[in-house]
């Protein structure tokens, strides 16, 4: 334990005696300071909660900070090398996605292009529908070609969505929140009836439109009958379904896709920060398959930095406002302490007479104001935490991103620092005044 110096201990002891002797004044100081410290605490708490919410959202979409993300082009060789490399490994997951339509065949989906159901999208979009293809001219310029007959096709009982196929459980990198039902089971044999886990938007579509259980997959050989396993919150606003890669590959192949529309299925691989061995194996297998380093794109997810940058301006503005409120509180404590020092001239002169150095006299005043600041901080933090305790469940009910977890300790720390700082600032001038009290004239009076 760090031994406090004699002077510091003396200052604290005498400061506490002073506070005990002047409870009403201490209370007045606390009242003037309370709002300032509370505003700093609340701003810090709100900023932490906003960051948490933004991070939680961005983690669902982008992935957890530190995760390695690798993009691999969709050639059959690359896909084969990737899937072989990751087989039996839990520290990396490969993803690919295709567009699919669930519902009646030979109709246009109600949300062409897989757009959100309640969203106006270019006045109606074009889905792949099996009627859009890419054609390239001899110079290599590629463009979409719409089948004119397709435009005559009526809109029917079908919805379009993105199907994301995974080689393993993606939730270790993108922590989807369960909403209903179950998540995919990767331990069983793959089924010919692909199990789908929907996001909220896809679930909304299936709830709103009664469609037959037939799934047309872009580039697929046949239309399988999907099974809906559950619903998750994935942070996406577009309808999406998650499926096991091996179940999808029963119906669509990388070879077929590579020769089909859009140039084939691209792969995205998520690797844990510690998956160095897996990464080495993957790179080696890809190199053996003819995929050089120049065709691999690797980055490390750093969502926190992005979020912090986007929140910085807001944080500065709100802290500025809280600082102003705190300064008003400082003026209050300064006023009360100046009056108190004025009344305690004899006490300070006497203390100097018995050998108390000027620095300790200043320290006594600062100790009193800083202890008062600490008490105020405790009250403000307690109040904020109480309100948080009551409001947090209600906020969480409003939206998942408002489920912000426990009261942030950073807010408590900010409150303590604000209290101490305000005490220091408010006590500075009175402390100097106390230290300058002359002994001779006071003791003679």
């Amino acid at each position, binding site marked *: 334990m760090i031994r406090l110096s004699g002077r510091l201990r003396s200052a604290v002891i005498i400061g506490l005696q002073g506070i005990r*002797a002047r409870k009403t004044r201490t209370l007045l100081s606390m009242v003037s300071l309370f709002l300032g410290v509370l505003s700093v605490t609340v701003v810090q708490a709100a900023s932490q909660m906003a960051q948490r919410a933004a991070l939680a959202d961005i983690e669902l979409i982008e992935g957890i900070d530190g995760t390695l993300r690798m993009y691999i082009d969709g050639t059959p060789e690359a896909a084969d090398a990737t899937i072989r490399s990751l087989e039996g490994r839990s520290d990396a997951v490969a993803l690919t996605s295709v567009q699919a339509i669930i519902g009646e065949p030979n109709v246009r989906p109600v949300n062409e292009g897989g757009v959100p159901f309640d969203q106006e999208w270019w006045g109606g979009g074009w889905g792949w529908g099996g009627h859009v293809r890419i054609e390239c001219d001899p110079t290599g310029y590629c463009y979409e070609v719409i089948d004119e007959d397709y435009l005559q096709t009526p809109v029917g009982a079908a919805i379009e969505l993105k199907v994301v196929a995974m080689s393993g459980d993606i939730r270790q990198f993108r922590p989807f929140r369960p909403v209903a039902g179950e998540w995919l089971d990767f331990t069983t044999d793959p089924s010919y009836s692909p199990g789908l886990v929907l996001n909220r938007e896809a679930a909304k579509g299936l709830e709103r439109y009664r469609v037959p259980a037939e799934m047309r997959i872009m580039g697929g050989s046949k239309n399988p009958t999907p099974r809906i396993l559950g619903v998750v919150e994935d942070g996406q606003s577009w309808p999406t379904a998650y499926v096991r890669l091996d179940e999808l590959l029963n119906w669509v192949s990388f070879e077929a896709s590579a020769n089909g529309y859009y140039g084939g299925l691209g792969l995205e691989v998520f690797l844990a920060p510690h998956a160095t061995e897996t990464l080495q194996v993957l790179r080696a297998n890809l190199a053996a398959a003819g995929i050089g380093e120049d065709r691999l794109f690797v980055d490390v997810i750093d969502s926190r930095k992005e979020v912090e940058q986007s929140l910085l301006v807001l944080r500065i503005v709100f802290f500025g406002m809280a600082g102003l409120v705190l300064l008003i509180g400082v003026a209050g404590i300064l006023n009360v302490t100046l009056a108190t020092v004025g009344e305690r001239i004899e006490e300070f002169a006497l203390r100097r007479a*018995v050998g108390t150095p000027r620095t300790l006299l200043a320290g006594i005043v600062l100790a009193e104001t800083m202890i008062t600041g600490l008490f105020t901080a405790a009250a403000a933090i307690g109040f904020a935490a109480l309100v948080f305790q009551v409001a947090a469940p209600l906020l969480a009910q409003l939206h998942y991103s408002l489920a912000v977890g426990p009261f942030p300790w950073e807010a408590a720390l900010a409150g303590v620092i604000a209290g101490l700082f305000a005490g220091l600032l408010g006590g500075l001038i009175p402390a100097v005044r106390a230290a300058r009290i002359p002994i001779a004239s006071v003791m003679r009076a």
Partner: protein
Amino acid sequence: MTTPLVQLIGVTKTLRGQEQPRPILTGVDLTLHSGESVAILGRSGSGKSTLLSLIGLFDRADSGQYLLDGQDITRISDSKAAALRSAQFGFVFQRFFLLKHLTAAQNVAMALVNGQGWLSRRQRREKVLAALDQVGIAHLAKHRPARLSGGEQQRVAIARALVREPRIILADEPTGALDTETGNLVVDTLRAATERGCALVLVTHDPDHAARMGRVLRLRDGVLHPEAVTAPSRPPEPVGALPDRVGEATHVPRHARPAENEGVRA
């Protein structure tokens, strides 16, 4: 020959901040040895308290020399002066200067909790009780000033002056606010300290109290003059008999309630 404890040589002081600066001490010479008691008499405004504040390092002389234990401390720094006040001096004032929100023990302990070294709570308590015992009011340790008589309050102030076992006690009209009998008690208490080797400088208007000191000086025209000692109207109390008498005066035998001070906070 032993080195004097305090030696002032040609000390001058002019009071400023008024319309015209007023020379109040024009050349004070004073020598004080350990165990010696000196009374300083003089009219109001003659500079007695100013002289005391110079000796007690509250203020600085304009010229002259101040030797403490042979060391020249005329131009001592503020922090060293504070340290010397704590270690060497005890002060008693006419107006007691007790803090009303503190108990008698805490008021005495004030001289120990002053940033000049650190004593544990137990050590502080022992010293405080010893000092209060020395002035015969250990049983009042937990009382606040409002519950004490004038004499008791002044004895708390004397205990505060004695608690650090000073070498010099400076008393500025300590009996000024007390009746004659209580004043005599206070002077006897102060004089008892000199029996333990402490020097005493007593500023007073009362010739009787002055007569009980070893030496009497009169401050006139800014200079100290020796004064002939006249016999006091009341003979000094034998020092050994003092505490019992003090105890009787407060109707509480000194050692009658030892348990009462068990929880004394100092």
